[in-house]
């Protein structure tokens, strides 16, 4: 185990991958808010993350995309909810930023070690 290849860093990287993939889906949903027949889709992010954290599944996060259930369809067959998507947009952005902050703190620690504690 080297300084640059710790489990935490690998997991953080996966977390960033997962959040940015989810953001892609949310952006897709928002972009197709007026497309007739379009169905909202999402990924089981929480389940995937838990699997990754428990270590059962050591592969790279494989996107598992599925349609979202329980949303009300409009007469044109589209079921994109603007409220749901804007909420997710903000939520995922914050999750991503939080992971980046932790990553920065890790690197700052490493940098301190490299400089032997000198500022």
């Amino acid at each position: 185990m080297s300084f640059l290849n710790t489990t935490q860093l690998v997991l953080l990287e996966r977390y960033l991958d997962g959040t940015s993939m989810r953001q892609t889906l949310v952006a897709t949903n928002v972009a197709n808010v007026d497309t007739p027949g379009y169905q909202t889709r999402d990924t089981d992010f929480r389940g995937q993350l838990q699997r990754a954290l428990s270590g059962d599944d050591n592969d790279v996060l494989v996107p598992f995309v599925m349609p979202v259930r329980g949303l009300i369809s409009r007469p044109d067959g589209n079921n994109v909810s603007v409220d749901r998507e804007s909420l997710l947009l903000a939520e995922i952005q914050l999750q991503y930023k939080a992971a980046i902050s932790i990553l920065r703190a890790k690197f700052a620690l490493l940098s301190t070690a490299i400089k032997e504690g000198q500022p």
Partner: protein
Amino acid sequence: MNLFRVMEISGSALLAERMRAEVVSANLANAETTRVDGGGPFQRMHVVFGARPVAHPSFGMSLASFGDLHAENVRVVGLVGDETPPIQRFEPGHPDADTQGYVSYPAINPAEEMINLMGAARGYEMNASAITSIKNMIQSAITILG
């Protein structure tokens, strides 16, 4: 996974919503047009949106994103004319009046067009805020370096 591609998706929606607004404005502007090049009154137009998988410019990029092909751009897939028959108004002095004195006006309801225009504007705003959010994410990723 590339965050810049997410911006491309939202960008495609900006383009589509703008085209919708253009077509609706053309309908509004021509609500009283009784003469077009092909003859007859102006025909009301509709845009049709469709979801299209994101195209990859190169083989390498499609290989890199293999497995996440669920992202879809929005595209204007068609421009359809409204087949509603024109409204007949009795105006015998009008240069486009027929032999009975009726003039054909396009079947355009300004209120309906205004609502359509508002929908396009709100869709545009929504996607613009999605772009802002993605821009923030990219910016915070850049701060890892510094």
